[in-house]
């Protein structure tokens, strides 16, 4: 019965502690039958001490969170003015100039490596050769009568 009463008292005290954040009982109670002691904590009224164990997942103190001082940070610099200018410079020169002008340049390059010319020339030659009865292609790249070989040594 005494342990049961102890449990009840402890539970009531702990419930009070849970709702109010610290042990409400100002007195110390010692059990006559068991060795239980309910006492107000020595640190009542003081704040809980800082955790001395640093967990790995806590942000490292050296890591500076750029968003803390400047919630609109773009990630370039602590100084908000430089940060915004850096962002603008990157977007203007990177996107507006290089990507846009570069893409336009590449898209409108005239006849890259003469492919279109090659196609037109091939079609023209085929038309000519078919009209004149010549074979469309010959296996000789150059005219063999024009090649002068050295004498057999």
């Amino acid at each position, binding site marked *: 019965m005494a342990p049961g009463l102890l449990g009840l008292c402890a539970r009531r005290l702990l419930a009070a502690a849970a709702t109010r954040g610290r042990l409400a009982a100002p007195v110390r109670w010692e059990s006559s039958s068991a060795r239980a002691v309910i006492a107000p904590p020595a640190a009542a009224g003081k704040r809980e001490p800082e955790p001395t164990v640093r967990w790995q997942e806590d942000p490292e103190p050296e890591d500076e969170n750029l968003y803390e001082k400047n919630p609109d940070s773009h990630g*370039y610099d602590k100084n908000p003015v430089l940060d915004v200018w850096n962002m603008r410079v990157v977007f203007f*020169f*990177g996107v507006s100039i290089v990507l846009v002008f570069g893409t336009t340049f590449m898209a409108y390059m005239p006849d*890259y490596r003469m492919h279109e010319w090659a196609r037109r020339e091939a079609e023209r030659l085929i038309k000519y050769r078919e009209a004149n009865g010549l074979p469309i292609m010959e296996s000789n790249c150059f005219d063999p009568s024009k090649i002068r070989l050295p004498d057999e040594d």
Partner: protein
Amino acid sequence: MLKTILPTIMLIPLAWLSKNNMLWINSTMYSLAISITCLPLMNLSCDNSLNMSLLFFSDSLSTPLLLLTVWLLPLMIMASQHHLSKEPDSQKKLYITMMVLLQTFLIMTFSATELIMFYILFEATLVPTLIMITRWGGQTERLNAGIYFLFYTLAGSLPLLVALVYTQASVGSLNLLLIQYWNHPSIQVWGSSALWLAYMMAFMVKMPLYGLHLWLPKAHVEAPIAGSMVLAAILLKLGGYGMLRITVMLNPITNFMTYPFLMLSLWGMIMTSSICLRQTDLKSLIAYSSVSHMALVIMAIMIQSPWSFMGATALMIAHGLTSSMLFCLANSNYERTHSRTMILARGLQMILPLMAAWWLLASLMNLALPPSINLIGELFVTTAMFSWSNLSIILLGINIIITALYSLYMLITTQRGKYTYHIHNIKPSFTRENTLMMLHLTPLLLLMVKPQIILGTLY
């Protein structure tokens, strides 16, 4: 070319003489302006090269790579702004100087006419990259990574120097436009195989070929974001570009010398793709995926057919943009959680939905979704490889499937699922990060409508 090279060199005084608060604005602004000066090179009115001077030329192989290089510098500057924000101003200026120096060397490398100049600048690009990795990398492993990176590349390219000097002595000129017409002796001796190896090993290490790829995961993972971006996007392509130029003059020996490298690449692309499926480190996954894609490029260059050369060039440009974008995305995770472990920050779609959109698009590009230029490259290479040997389609098909698998694995692990309780404090995406992704993705999407410009000299 001077209209690009001189302004790029002048970015160094710009960085050092800028007011400290205008440093990033100035460098980003002027590097974006420089990137548009390279664009007129694209106006190739005929199908041979544009020879601007004795030193510099540009043709449809080097021009897309040049454009990629100049486009990447402002992106690197934007990506580095956050992790350098705590450093003293002189360190920031030094970092920008390293990036600009690297940029200058790369521009000159891609437009070099003379092969010795190409070689000197090829080696010179190692130095700023090494400084960036070893000084500004995140972990202690960066020193080892720097050593692997430097010595692998140096060991591969020292024979190249010997071979180039020998060719200069025997042929008389190393001008790229002239050596295409070099008449080879019809007798092949052991020396010609050794010469072929001396020429190619530098580029094989740079690409990297599967057996020589150990420097890549280390260097990519330990490098700071700008270092990873430039390594993945451009420095790897230096190897491909060099191979595409040199194989023109190596012709009859190439027929039998390429077999070991083809076998290594065919096997290596599957191996590295499979390793990707078992990676816990996000940057390491992207690094191994780079090896896998570059193995495709190596194979394409080895089999020397018109379609495969077109595929190789397309794949280089596409992979440059995609891989750089993936590294930027991984960096956005790293800046928040300070860890590269993939599962540490998962379920991000709920928390950062716009970043999830970029992740989705980057992963879809990486797995070569039609109609992206990644697919064009892979498809051309696969078709050319099939015509070279019917059996290779099995391995290539397996690789395409595993590429899709690990790209989706990376996407699902970081974005989908229930988020972990401990990432409640990550900051929302910055405009800077979204702009960075958009600037990577827009060229990729725009190139879908005009892929002729990245298909190289044989289209």
